[in-house]
């Protein structure tokens, strides 16, 4: 094994003096590990100059002690055996720094998450493992070196992907904080799911009424660069300096600005709508859940932002009638092509939202087989005054007003069959209560039947809302619907359910059934998250950095989460998280610079044969070959290097030094484990 010497240390490394601090974490660790045994053992280890233990090492006294002992014992390195470095490494690095030590002289031994908590009934085994963990950490600490984080300037701009209520709120907050914000939306208009809703629970204020002002603000905001019909195509760089490529899909329509840029004075789309009527092609309007028509050149609805028409190329026949109708404004360009736009931002917020899962896969409920079985989103459009029926709820089969309407909760949620979703979709209970209220209010004599397993009304004023709806006359039946049968003649739908509280099966003929279908991440979420290196949980929702303490962050520095893309959320929660994410995303930008962990690669030139194998291995093009006093050697562009070490793992000559994960350090850990302890 090639024994590399760091290119940074010219002087011989001093004899290490390591301090070991063992944490009880109350009984979290001490409960299943014999602390004294570990302590006594640590004293016997080479290079260990001081050993101590404490109930809560992360507490102030614990940190102060570390600080004082560094000085008192002339420590060259510090090992804390406690929880996971992913939780408290920053804490103890700070403590080491306060003690006058370079923070990167600190090493952590994880004896909680990966020991005491997973070996609770094997005290002996856990204690042995803890001893080894300390030994391994000490071995590394003895070889750690001073490192100095590189601080890089942060681009004074942010990006928000997805312009639903969460994305809009985040963008507005950032913009109001004086940060230029690119707001990327794949649809032709901002507003997202919320703009499809009629009323909102539990306050019952009209969704459009409270949302459209926000949409207008977004459209007007100085600091917001709005890009609709756009998708993230590629991402490079790191916190402070993300280079993002956006695909702006050809809409076939020029905004006034774009027209101006093309020298068409006073031209561009004004949203006058002259083009629509002349278009010969009719298609279903996705915004109306395909229950209303639109033309091949269209807007979703009158309140869209930006108020620009869009051409649906899949159905456009390029007859040119719209071009004529548009006339002097010359807003329509049937030859328009997608364009790729490059932007540089310091931080990014993902707010890609949710969609309804294909509920027709739960065949027992007959969605798409039975006319009068619809989803909640379809219900929202049918009950909405601006919807396809002007807010008059009708059954799809015959346009009649339904009087007995069933609401099937947990339709595909809390489902372990592999067809539905194992999780609770979180807002179905509440909007179904709202739907019940809406029909009682709008249709005199109409009776809602709510088939539920549990009513989860956990939010502020939610339980009170439940109380109100029950009082208004909604029928609550505690049972999950097993199947639905359609009467071939009347098209009425009969629901089969057990009233589990009565212990009695029920056969209830209804005019219409609304499925509160489970939700899932939007189609593009997976592609987008991979571009930003964000992980997801098994069910596809984006993974937060810490479920409790960092719910907006991700494991990619500078990338944050807002709204339902992180898990099903109602409007208040989405907006709240959006504001959290916006504040988190603005911090590095306001600081103006971020410190990057100095884990970059370095070339040990006397060992480098200049073979260049590593150059192609680097996913970030951070390596290159250069001539240096007559020899070809590799050179690292530190700003580009993210410290993955793929080059170091390959270099045949061991000529690459990975800061903080150097070959001698890792080998020392391996040896310490296998050769160090009693054999």
């Amino acid at each position: 094994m090639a024994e590399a010497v760091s290119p940074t240390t010219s002087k011989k490394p001093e004899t290490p003096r390591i301090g070991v601090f063992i944490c009880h974490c109350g009984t979290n660790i001490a409960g299943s590990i014999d602390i004294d045994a570990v302590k006594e053992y640590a004293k016997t280890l080479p290079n260990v100059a001081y050993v101590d233990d404490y109930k809560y090492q992360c507490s102030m006294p614990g940190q102060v002690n570390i600080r004082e002992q560094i000085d008192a014992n002339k420590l060259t390195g510090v090992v804390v055996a406690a929880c996971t470095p992913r939780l408290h490494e920053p804490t103890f690095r700070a403590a080491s720094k306060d003690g006058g030590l370079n923070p990167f002289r600190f090493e952590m031994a994880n004896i909680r998450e990966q020991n005491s908590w997973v070996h609770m009934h094997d005290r002996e085994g856990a204690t042995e493992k803890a001893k080894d963990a300390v030994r391994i950490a000490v071995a590394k600490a003895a070889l750690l070196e001073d490192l100095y984080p590189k601080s890089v300037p942060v681009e004074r701009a942010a990006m928000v992907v997805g312009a639903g209520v969460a994305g809009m709120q985040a963008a507005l907050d950032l913009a109001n904080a004086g940060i230029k914000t690119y707001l990327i939306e794949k649809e032709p208009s901002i507003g997202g799911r919320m703009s499809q809703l009629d009323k909102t629970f539990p306050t019952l204020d009209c969704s459009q009424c409270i949302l459209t002002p926000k949409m207008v603000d977004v459209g007007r905001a100085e600091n917001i660069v709005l890009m609709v019909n756009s998708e993230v195509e590629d991402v490079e760089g790191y916190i402070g300096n993300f280079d993002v490529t956006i695909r702006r899909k050809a809409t076939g329509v020029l905004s006034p600005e774009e027209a101006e840029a093309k020298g068409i004075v006073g031209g561009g789309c004004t949203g006058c709508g002259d083009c629509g009527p002349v278009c010969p092609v009719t298609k279903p309007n996705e915004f109306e859940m395909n229950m209303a028509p639109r033309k091949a050149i269209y807007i979703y609805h009158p309140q869209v932002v930006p108020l620009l028409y869009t051409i649906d190329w899949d159905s456009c026949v390029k007859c040119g009638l719209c071009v004529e109708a548009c006339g002097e404004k010359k807003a329509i360009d049937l030859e328009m092509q997608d364009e790729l736009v490059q932007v540089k931002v310091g931080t990014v917020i993902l707010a890609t939202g949710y969609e309804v899962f294909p509920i027709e896969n739960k065949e027992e409920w007959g969605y798409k087989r039975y006319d009068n079985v619809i989803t909640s989103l379809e219900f929202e459009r049918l009950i909405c005054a601006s919807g396809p029926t002007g807010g008059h709820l009708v059954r799809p089969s015959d346009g009649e007003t339904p009087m007995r309407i069933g609401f099937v909760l947990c339709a595909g949620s809390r489902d372990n069959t592999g067809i539905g979703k194992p999780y609770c979709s979180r807002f179905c209970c509440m909007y179904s209560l709202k739907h019940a209220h809406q029909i009682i209010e709008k249709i005199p004599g109409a009776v809602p039947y709510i088939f539920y397993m549990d009513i989860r009304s956990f939010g502020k004023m939610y339980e009170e809302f439940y109380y109100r709806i029950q009082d208004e006359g909604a029928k609550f039946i505690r049972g999950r619907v097993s199947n639905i049968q359609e009467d071939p003649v009347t098209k009425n739908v009969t629901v089969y359910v057990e009233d589990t509280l009565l212990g009695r099966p029920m056969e209830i003929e209804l005019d219409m059934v609304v499925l509160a279908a489970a939700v899932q991440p939007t189609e593009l979420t997976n592609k987008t998250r991979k571009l930003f290196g964000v992980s997801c949980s098994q069910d596809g929702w984006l993974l937060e950095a810490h479920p409790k303490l960092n719910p907006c962050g991700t494991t990619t520095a500078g990338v944050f989460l807002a709204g339902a893309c992180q898990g099903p959320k109602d409007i208040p929660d989405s907006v709240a998280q959006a504001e959290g994410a916006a504040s988190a995303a603005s911090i590095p930008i306001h600081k103006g610079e971020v410190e990057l962990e100095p884990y970059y690669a370095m070339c040990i030139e006397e060992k480098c044969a200049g073979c260049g194998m590593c150059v192609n291995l680097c996913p970030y093009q951070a390596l290159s070959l250069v001539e240096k006093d007559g020899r070809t050697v590799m050179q690292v562009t530190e700003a580009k290097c993210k410290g993955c070490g793929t080059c170091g793992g390959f270099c045949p000559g061991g000529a690459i030094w990975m800061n903080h994960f150097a070959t001698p350090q890792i080998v020392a850990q391996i040896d310490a484990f296998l050769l160090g302890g009693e054999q």
Partner: protein
Amino acid sequence: MATKNYPDPILNEKLRDRYYHRDQSNPEFTKEIEKIAGTMAHMCFQCGTCTAGCPSAPRSSYRIREFMRRAVLGLEDEALTDPDLWFCTTCYSCTDRCPRDLAPTDVIMAMRNLAARRDIVPVNFLKTVQAIYSSGHGVPNNDVNRAAREKLGMTRDPPTTSMYPEYIKGIQKILDHYGLKERADRIIKEREG
């Protein structure tokens, strides 16, 4: 459960203790069921989907959800002595629809197996056993049918154990291995004399 020893047996029954007491639960019962049925019966969350689609529920007091509950709580006696246990037509609708991906039908079959170990089993089931023991068929051939087969140009007996009775020995060996025939005879005799 606390027993009341009032002198009047009618009152005693009328005022029978309806409390659930922990000692009525037998955790082994739940385990036994899961072993036989190969489904995580203890994961039932009582949504009622099973009963709602059950063809027997609307025409009897049979509630498969309640049997699932008994499986969860280990209410062995209550489950095995309930005559409703034998109303399941094994149509598997509940199994196909259970959101917890359990197999209530197989839980019922497991309970029936456990009941049968206590000789709790309807006579008609045992008569099928007797028929198969003697003829190899649960629904044996008869002369009317033999004539009919002949008329159709078929052999009077199908090429099963009816045509090759020498195979019946093997069947009897299998059933005797489990002593099922004797048990069937004994139980039927007890019930019908």
